[in-house]
């Protein structure tokens, strides 16, 4: 039986991620030990963040299952609930309901393969979860290429972690910004351009792409040029959601329910659907 009751959690830490202050990462810890132990998720899954009196919102889980004891959510301030969430303080109580959705196929289609992760803007959250997981289980995967872009250096999420990843040497990290900026000595250019330059061949590989629709649209042609096909590309859809359990119908794209059947789909699957996302 579904439970719509959120688990009570407390905000343990809040990190302002970006220069405009619109993105914050919330570290949440469970109030209840049993619930904490019972929580199991897969990178790519999402959860409902619940604020009493405000409502619930579906947000991708930014922490990897390997980071035990807490959950991370990076939230963009956009609507009623996220605005209220941004006004909350450390130590306050809120709720988490989940994990929901299917997540990336880390144990099936991705196992033993070369992984290409392409992220744009704040869509990087669930891909951060994925990357951390992959790095923890480094031996199970082949070459890892991580391409991430944002408008400006100040809009990049998880900057400190990126530095650590860059230092590891066992992954190919490409962080880019749209335009030249003072103090930025990294890559400059849009994600699709960079992806076209650095993406490896599709042989024994899968790609995970998350970002604004326009970025995804322009990233595909350079990949296709070097032989990538739709079935190797995983995308994550989003739609308005209410229940998160495949009941309320809000997130339907044709017969598919994003919350239950997704949010992760291969590009082959997405192409069969009406464009209602």
């Amino acid at each position, binding site marked *: *039986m*579904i*439970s*719509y*009751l*959120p688990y*009570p959690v407390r905000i343990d830490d809040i990190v302002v991620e970006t220069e405009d202050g619109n993105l914050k990462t919330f570290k949440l810890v469970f109030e209840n030990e049993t619930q904490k132990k019972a929580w199991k998720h897969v990178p790519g899954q999402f959860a409902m963040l*619940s*604020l*009493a*009196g*405000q*409502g*619930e919102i579906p947000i991708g889980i930014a922490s990897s299952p390997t980071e035990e004891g807490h959950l991370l959510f990076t939230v963009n301030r*956009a*609507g009623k609930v*996220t605005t209220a969430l941004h006004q909350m303080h450390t130590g*306050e*109580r*809120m*709720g988490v309901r989940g994990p929901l959705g299917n997540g990336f196929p880390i144990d099936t289609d991705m196992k033993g393969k070369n992984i290409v992760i392409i992220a744009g803007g704040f869509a990087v959250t669930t891909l951060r979860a994925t990357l951390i997981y992959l790095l923890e289980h480094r031996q199970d995967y082949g070459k890892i290429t991580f391409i991430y872009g944002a408008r400006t250096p100040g809009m990049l999420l998880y900057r400190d972690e990126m530095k650590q990843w860059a230092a590891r040497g066992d992954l190919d990290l490409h962080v880019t910004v749209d335009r030249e900026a003072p103090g930025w000595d990294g890559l400059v250019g849009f994600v699709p351009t960079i992806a076209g330059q650095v993406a490896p061949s599709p042989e024994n590989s899968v790609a995970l792409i998350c970002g604004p629709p326009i970025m995804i649209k322009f990233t595909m042609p350079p990949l296709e040029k070097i032989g990538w096909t739709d079935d190797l590309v995983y995308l994550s859809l*989003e*739609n*308005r959601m*209410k*229940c998160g*359990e*495949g*009941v*309320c*119908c*809000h997130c*339907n*794209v*044709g*017969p598919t329910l994003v919350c239950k059947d997704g949010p992760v789909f291969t590009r082959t699957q997405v192409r*069969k659907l*009406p*464009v*209602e*996302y």
Partner: protein
Amino acid sequence: MKVFRLSQTELDNMVQQWSQNRRVYRPAADRQQSAHADCAPGWERVAGSAPLTMAVGPPKTSVKTFLFPQPETMQTFSLKSSDPDKALMKEPEKLTEKQIVAGLRPCDARSVMLNNLPYREDPFYQANLARTVMVGFTCSAMCATCFCDQVGGSPMGTEGLDIAISQIDGSFVAEVLTPAGEELTAGLDLAPADDTDINALAARRAASPQVDSAKLAALKGRDLNRLYEAPLWKPLGESCINCGACTFNCPTCYCFDVQDEVVRGYGRRIRYWDSCMFPLYSLHTSGHNPRGRKMQRTRNRFMHKLKYFPDRYGPFSCVGCGRCVQDCPVNIDIREVMSDLLTVE
């Protein structure tokens, strides 16, 4: 299975007896209703001795209001800073008191079963299903707007009912179909039906319109994208005013929205009916709306009923009660949509 024969007086006495220690609801006789009635519009609690009679066609509003009430409290919470449980969501006590819905029709009873497909794991729906006993009338004739036979049902159907009552020659034959129904009739002084009644009932059932399964199969076999791109949606979307009359009176429309309500530090999270006809239904916070145009929303409603739902769960999400046909302000007729869809190349 027990079968009883009742006169109108005996039927009324039976309902009266139930209402003495249980909540019994029936289709409302009047359009207006007291603001403090304990049930949804279109229904009333049985009180006094008004006879339970068969009116023409299904009741004004569907039975879903008893299983999927509008609103349903999902959680309650306090926002008082003095409360140690501040912002802690708590589940309300589950209602277990039995309620009897009397006078519904086979179409509505079937809708309960259809909605149970997406709601199989839903705690609130299941709790309401467990506490609701359904006593329905079968239909001796079909109304001009009824089409249950075209979508997998039957005017004489009993699916979903606990007790099915059929009118035969001025008196009633009651089939007790489930343990819940038996519990209701146990201890009542009822005359068993004789063979004549049972034969008459069987003959009626045999003569009733049969399920048009060819139509069902034809739509199911069709390619989704062909139907999606069909030219019929444009004129349909143009005349639709995107109100929710069809969805709210539809027994098989089951979408809901969730919102928090707070009064003076005490709050509840409720779910209530939503309609895919409203732009807000699919609107993203970013302002992007995947179904921003009227036509897309109209299409989604029919595609969901006739294609998406069958593809996912099997049957059409429609019981052919005809309420949407009657209530649509602009006369969008789902029967015409179905036949138009069948002719799409």
